[in-house]
Every structure is written in C-alpha cells, then in structure tokens.
C-alpha cells in the first residue's frame, strides 16, 4: 500500500472501529437520525475545518477562526435585526468582511514575514474585541428566513434528516476536495507546505497563494459563523470560544501533517465526525461527564501526531541529510 495514504486509512479505520464498538453497546447509534444529527451539530465545525486544512497544508496555523465565527454571527445578527437587511444580503456582507479580514492577515504574514500563529493570535483578539463592541449580549434572530431554513431538510430512510446546514457542510467538503486536488491553487498550497523555498524557486506565487489561503480560511470561518447563527438562531460575541482548538484537532486527527505539505480534505471530514462521535457516545452513556471529551480528543491527537512521526520519520531523515 502507498505509505502516503497510511494516516488517512488509519483515521478511517479508527472511525469505523470506534463507531462499531459504540454501536455494539448502543444499537440506536446506527439509526439515520444519529447520523443526520452528527452532520447538523458539527456543520459549523466542519466548514471551518476545511479552511483550516488548507492553512495547515501550507505549513501555517490560523488561531483566529473561533473569533471570526463569533464575529460573523454577531455581524449577521446586527445587520438583520438592527439594520433590517434581508438575511441573504447580510450574509454576503458578512462573508465579504470575513474574507477581507483574512486577506489582511495573509498580507501581514507574507509581507512582514512573521510566524502565522502570532499574526492570527492578534487577529483572534481583534475579531473577538470587535464582536464584543458590536454587542455585549446575545441577539436573537427571528426573521422568517431563519424559520424557513430550519424547516428545509432531506428525509432519510429511518426518520433521520439531512438539514440545510448539514448539506452545506457536505458541499463545502466536496468543493474543498476539488480545490485541493484538482486546481493549480491546491497544488501551490501543497508545494508551499512541502518546502516554501523550493516552491518559490519553481515559480509558485508565494505571496498571492499565502494571502488566498488565509482569505479562504477566514471566509469559511465566516460561513461557519453564519451556519452557527442559523443553528442557534442568535448571534453571540462569545460564541465558539476555543473552537480553533477543536478545528485544529479535527484536521490533525484527519491525518494532515502539521508541518505542512501532506494531507487530505476528506481526512478532515472523518476527523470532525470522530470528534462528533465521541460527544454522541458520551451523551448516550449519560454517566460520563463531558470533560472526558477533552481527554479522549487529546489522546487521539497525541496518537496521530505520534503516528505521523513514525510514518514520516524516514522522509524527514532524508530531508535533513
């Protein structure tokens, strides 16, 4: 078997085994209702994780996504309730603002040549602060459009439903996969993550690609924020605090190498579902406290980083020699 595919296969295997083990204990987990809810509950996480996959593939990190989710949820809520825009117009404005924010971070990272984590840390403070200045409280959204969207779903056999936001996440994953593996932009991202110097010598436009990567990440985080506002029917400045960690975990558990240059968008999807499964299992069990989620996720994270270490140790050795 191609050794490059091993982490992805391992992720899938762990998900299937974990799901089978959980389903043996609670057969109800197999119902299409649970599957549908898994998609709906993790929609905002999954959409954001697609953007993060590109960032990590390029060897960077984006700590601002949680704050951008909070900010765009609040901005959409303010535009709809206070300004009186139609939700679709408000969404377009919100997405444009989020994308511009990401582009600005990309510019700082590229032109000032500073590590992405410190720039996006500043971005996190900025977005969270801006959200809190827009409003301190949770703004409920009661526009008829929100009601329409929540009644929009596809019935699955067995009573489950794929909601609009669940379907949107699947679509973003499909588009993300195409973007990563079938476009020049995707190839450039992999090239930069593999080795930025070689990529630049090969003629990859480093600046343009870097800026686009962070624009995409913030754009998708903005979309995640809108989905989160659809999910909760509200905009709250402190929404999604710490979600950047969940998103990074999902990407890493999905088999993407944190050093960049290797990974699959599909893997991230499995990573998100695996995290969702842990939460669902804890809810089904009922006696375990929710803090076990953190320990299990932390353990999985460790396991995957360790595995990457051994799978790639041969390549890494060759690279340093």
């Amino acid at each position, binding site marked *: 078997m191609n050794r490059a595919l091993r982490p992805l296969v391992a992720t899938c295997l762990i998900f299937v085994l974990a799901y089978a083990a959980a389903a043996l204990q609670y057969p109800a987990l197999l119902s299409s209702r649970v599957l549908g809810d898994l998609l709906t509950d993790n929609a905002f996480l999954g959409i954001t994780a697609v953007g993060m996959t590109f960032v990590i593939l390029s060897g960077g990190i984006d700590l601002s996504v949680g704050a951008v989710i909070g900010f765009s949820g609040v901005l959409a809520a303010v535009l709809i309730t206070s300004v009186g825009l139609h939700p679709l117009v408000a969404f377009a404005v919100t997405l444009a603002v989020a994308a511009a924010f990401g582009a600005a971070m990309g510019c700082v990272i590229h032109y000032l040549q500073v590590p992405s984590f410190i720039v996006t840390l500043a971005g996190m403070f900025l977005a969270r602060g801006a959200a809190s200045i827009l409003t301190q409280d949770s703004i409920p959204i009661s526009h008829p459009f929100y009601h329409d969207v929540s009644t929009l779903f596809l019935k699955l056999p067995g009573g489950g439903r794929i909601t609009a936001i669940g379907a949107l996440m699947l679509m973003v994953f499909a588009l993300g996969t195409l973007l990563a593996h079938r476009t020049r932009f995707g190839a450039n991202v992999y090239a930069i993550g593999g080795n930025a110097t070689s990529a630049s010598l090969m003629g990859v436009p480093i600046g343009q690609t870097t800026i686009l990567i962070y624009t995409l990440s913030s754009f998708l985080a903005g979309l995640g924020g809108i989905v989160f506002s659809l999910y909760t029917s509200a905009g709250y400045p402190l929404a999604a605090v710490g979600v950047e960690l969940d998103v990074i975990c999902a990407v*890493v558990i999905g088999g993407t190498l944190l050093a960049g240059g290797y990974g699959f968008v599909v893997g991230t999807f499995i990573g998100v579902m695996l995290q969702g499964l842990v939460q669902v299992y804890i809810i089904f069990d009922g006696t375990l406290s929710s*803090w076990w989620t953190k320990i299990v996720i*932390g353990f999985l994270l460790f396991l995957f980083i360790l595995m990457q270490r051994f799978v790639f140790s041969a390549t890494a050795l060759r690279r340093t020699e």
Partner: protein
Amino acid sequence: MTTLSRIVSRLRPALSVQLGALVLVLLGNWVLFPGFFDLSVQDGRLFGSLIDVANRGAPVAILAIGMTLVIATRGVDLSVGAVMAVSGAIAATLVEAGYPAGVAVPLALVAGVACGAWNGFLISVLEMQPIVATLVLMVAGRGVAQLITNGSIVTFDDPWLTFLGNGTVLGLPMAPILLVLLALATILLVRRTALGLFIEAVGVNPSAARFAGLRSKLVVMIVYSFAGFCAGLAGLLVAADIQGADANNAGLWLELDAILAVVIGGTSLMGGRFSVVLSIIGAMIIQATNTGILVSGLPPEFNLIVKAAVILAILVLQSPLAAGLLRQRPGSRP
C-alpha cells in the same frame, strides 16, 4: 567587569524602550485616575493601584519567565494555562481531603514539572514541533484538571494555601514577592552558569549546538520542565487568590498573555537572545493596560483590540521590512 559593562550597554537601549512604555502606560492611568500612584498602609499591608497591578500581573509574569526560556530555544508552550488548572486542582483537592498545605503545595508543583517534562519529552525525544506537542496538553490538560476536581469548583479554607494568594510579608502581597524571588533565582541560574548560553545556542541553531557537543535534548527538557514549574506556581497563586480551583477557567487564555509578554519584552520568536527582566516588564505593561481600560470605563473587551494593536506594532517593528528601512537611513552603517 568588561563583560558586565558590555552586557549593560547591550541591554540599555532595549531596556529603556520597554521601561519607557511601562512608564507611559502608568502615566496614562494617572491622567485617567489621579489617585493612581497613591499608596496607603491599612492593617499592616500596603494598598494602592500600583500594588494592585503588581499583584494581578504576577501570575502572567511568572508564566512569562518560563515562556521566555522556552521561546529562547525557538519553541513555544501553549499548555501553561491548562497546567495552571491542573496544579490548582491538585492543591485544592489535596487540601480538601485533609492533607496539610506542606504536602499539597509541593505535590502541585511536582505535577507542574511533570507536565512540563512530558512536553519536553515529546519535543526533544520524539522530535515533535513545540506548537503541536504542547497543543496535546493544552487540550487534554483541562480535562485532566476536571477529572481531579470531579467537574466541580473545589473551594478550600486552608490558611497556609490561602496565604499564598492573600497573605503579606512586610506589608507586601505574596504574589509579587514570589515573582521577584523566582526572577532572581532564574536570572542567577541562566546568567551565572552556562545554562543561559546553552539555551541561546539551542535557539539560534540546534544542529550547530549539537555538533559543538551540547546536549541539546537535555537543555530542551530542562527548559520545558521549568516552564511547567512556573505554570504550576502560577496555578497555585490563582487558586489561592480565589480560594478555589476552577478547572474550566483557571489560567484560561493566559498562555497567550504570557507569549505576548515575552514578545513585548523583545525576545524573538525565532529563538536566541532573551531577557527575563524585559518579559516581566512586558507582563506588567499588559496588566497596567488592563487596569487602565477598566479605570477609564471603556468596555473590558476593548482590551483585546488594544492587545491586537500592540502585537501588530511590535511585529512591524521587528520585521525584516522595518529593518531594511532603518538600514537605508543616511548616516547609519550599511
């Protein structure tokens, strides 16, 4: 003597920038709140806004001491906030279970060192990137802390443990005293022994340091263990301050403040030269700004925007772009 004067002359321009910034922020506070520099003695302890800044800034400053050494080795420790929660949880739970503070406090510190050593093991032996290795504990650490406290906030009224947070010696609160003691011990350790040189060597070029016969792995291990110790101590102070261990919120996002303090202190994220004193001043600048924003009546969230602006300003100043512009100035050396 010549080396000492060289060190002083090397530090002085940098020192003046950060000290100047701190004085500026403090003066700003004084303009907003004329009683800012007032000190008074009540019930045998000093009171005043300055003491308050030192007291509240101490946990971040203690974290920043450990973080400075970590960043000097070209690493970063994201787990310190979670380690604070773990050490606070251990101390509170042990004291509540009837153990004396003399047992609980050392054990909590040992737990901090153990967490740091785990990070060091992942980074030096398994050769993981620091940001990834410490992310594991950042995620799992809070879960472990909640496991220890059983998901609730454990409160305690042990007089000795409480003394750490609220006690005074010679009228001064404990937290700044511990900070000064730790800072002095650290500076002696890194400047009076070769350890500081080793840390800088590992940060500048790990391969070169190894070829020069330096045991880089041991240095990295020691540095992360020390950062864990600092986080353990900071966790004790925070828990003692509120007489309770809150696994969810103790030390939340403080790792970011600690990194910010080190960056304000002028230590480069690319490793190498570092200054413990400047990082502590950086932590105090952050706390003084916090206090200023609270005093001025602006919403506390405004603080986040100020922090972001400060980070950006420093990044611009440190960037190669700015260095190039400065070099092109007429009259300066090429």
